[in-house]
């Protein structure tokens, strides 16, 4: 192989590592994306220009065409897609990567296979590539709404596992027996495609991101296998990197959703269990965590904190002040919106916040702050409930109807911290929590805010 190309691949590999690393921190993520992308460009250009092969111009033209077409499609889709549709696009792209790997495997198979090692790589490349492809396409379709319903195949776990076992056994047989019959490989291909479909189809939409991440990790492995096949280091190392990082990411996502990866892989995914029945009554709630809330607030221009009785119960006044100071240091404009009846006695919030030395100038009365919500990036509601309940405007039957409230729903993002979905003093449901803009940060206010402050410091 060409020595310069080797160096180019080496450099590309390093950019992958560094790029991935940078992608893991909010402050460097954008740059990381560029770094990784430029490494990829380098690898592709190097492959094209630095080989020692004799290649007919026709093939160059074909390659050029393929790159043009592919590049145009990719770029267009990426630019056109709506913000909310991005995850499914990622899934689609991932499927393409898998398909590419499977196709390469097929071509390799069509040539004579060498030793068992090579057979293993080629066949596993095809299997993994194919199931990644079909699985990703299904995931894309489900998220996109093309395949709507959660299809409940009876005994799907059993069927899936049997299918998977058959594929593995059959592939093993092919390797050991040295079978090169095209029929067989197409059979295997078909089975793999089918497995991908069956694997993803029964899974609920909410779990899709985990599935996509898992499939993504598999594509990485497929790429690594292809690298093995061509003795190509950039594919090998790059693929493994994606594979291992992808698994870790999948686990992290599972953890963020309070599931285990085992449960995910072995079919505990699924229809019935994903959504807690109760919440459904009014709508879906979105949960968030301290890390996300911290990032949202860190990158906001202005934040309004709405304290309520829960802040007093949790005795979180000192932490909220710390949070406010920290955000202010970061250049975020922070105010407190004080509802006249927040808490359990007149001036409850004032006593509380005075104790932690919050500047009086930051406390804004309801009438003054209400017009400011539409221009507010993030509202953080801490242990308040009735005082931000839109039922006061909307629901004449509600006991608080007619009471002026803090119109937090006009803000761009709303983070609500409380311990549970329990109602407040007035004992009524709060629609705000089901608002699409609202993310619930569950937990005792003191603990949750302490975590939030810690996350913020790590940014």
């Amino acid at each position, binding site marked *: 192989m060409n020595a310069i190309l080797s160096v180019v691949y080496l450099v590309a590999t390093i950019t992958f590592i560094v790029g991935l690393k940078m992608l893991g921190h909010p402050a460097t993520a954008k740059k990381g994306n560029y770094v990784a992308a430029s490494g990829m460009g380098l690898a592709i250009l190097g492959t*094209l220009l630095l080989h020692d092969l004799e290649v007919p111009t026709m093939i160059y033209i*074909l390659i050029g065409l393929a790159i043009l077409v592919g590049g145009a499609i990719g770029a267009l889709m990426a630019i056109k897609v709506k913000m909310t549709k991005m995850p499914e696009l990622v899934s689609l792209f991932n499927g393409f990567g898998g398909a590419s790997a499977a196709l390469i495997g097929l071509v390799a198979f069509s040539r004579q296979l060498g030793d068992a090692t090579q057979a293993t790589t080629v066949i596993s490349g095809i299997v993994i590539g194919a199931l990644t492809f079909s699985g990703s396409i299904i995931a894309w379709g489900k998220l996109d709404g093309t395949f709507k319903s959660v299809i409940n195949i009876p005994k799907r776990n059993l069927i899936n596992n049997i299918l998977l076992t058959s594929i593995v056994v059959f592939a093993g047989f092919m390797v050991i027996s040295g079978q090169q019959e095209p029929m067989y490989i197409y059979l295997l291909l078909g089975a793999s495609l089918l497995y991908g479909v069956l694997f993803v189809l029964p899974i609920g939409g909410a779990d899709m991101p985990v599935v996509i991440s898992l499939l993504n990790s598999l594509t990485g492995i497929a790429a690594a296998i292809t690298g093995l096949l061509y003795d*190509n280091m950039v594919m090998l190392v790059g693929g493994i990197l994606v*594979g291992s990082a992808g698994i870790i990411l999948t686990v992290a996502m599972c953890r963020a959703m309070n599931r285990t990866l085992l449960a995910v892989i072995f079919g505990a995914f699924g229809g019935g269990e994903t959504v807690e029945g109760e919440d459904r009554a009014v709508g879906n709630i979105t949960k968030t965590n301290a890390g996300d809330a911290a990032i949202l607030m860190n990158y906001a221009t202005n934040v309004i904190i709405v304290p309520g009785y829960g802040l007093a119960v949790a005795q979180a006044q000192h932490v909220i002040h710390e949070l406010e100071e920290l955000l202010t240091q970061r250049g975020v404009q922070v105010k407190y919106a004080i509802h006249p009846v927040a808490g359990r006695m007149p001036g409850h919030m004032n006593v509380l916040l005075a104790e932690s030395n919050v500047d009086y100038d930051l406390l804004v009365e309801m009438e003054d702050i209400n017009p400011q919500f539409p221009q507010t990036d993030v509202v953080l509601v801490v242990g308040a409930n009735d005082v931000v309940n839109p039922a006061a405007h909307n629901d004449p039957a509600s006991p608080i109807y007619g009471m002026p409230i803090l119109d937090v729903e006009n803000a761009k993002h709303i983070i609500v911290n409380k311990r549970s979905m329990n109602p407040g003093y007035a004992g009524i449901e709060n629609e705000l929590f089901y608002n699409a803009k609202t993310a619930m940060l569950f937990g005792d206010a003191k603990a949750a805010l302490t975590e939030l402050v810690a996350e913020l410091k790590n940014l």
Partner: protein
Amino acid sequence: MNQWIDLIINNLDLIYILILAIFVGVEVIKHIPTILHTPLMSGANALSGVVVVGALLVMLNADPDDYLALCLGFIAVVLGIVNVVGGFAVTGRMLQMFKKKD
């Protein structure tokens, strides 16, 4: 058995590379904030498009009259490039939100 031993001995370097790369992958990703899960997934997806290098090799190595290889290779390149270009572009868009407004 012997086959496996051979496999190990012949590919010892690769095995080391594999294991070290896994360590690097894991170390590099650990402790990322949840909000970066999706962009990171997207970025990793773009990286997995490195398989396009393989597709290019297929085409570069193909005989001009090996139509199967050329055809499949062509599709593979197209798909791989979509994955790479689209992947990085989408990741870039997702990361727009981390621009500090001021």
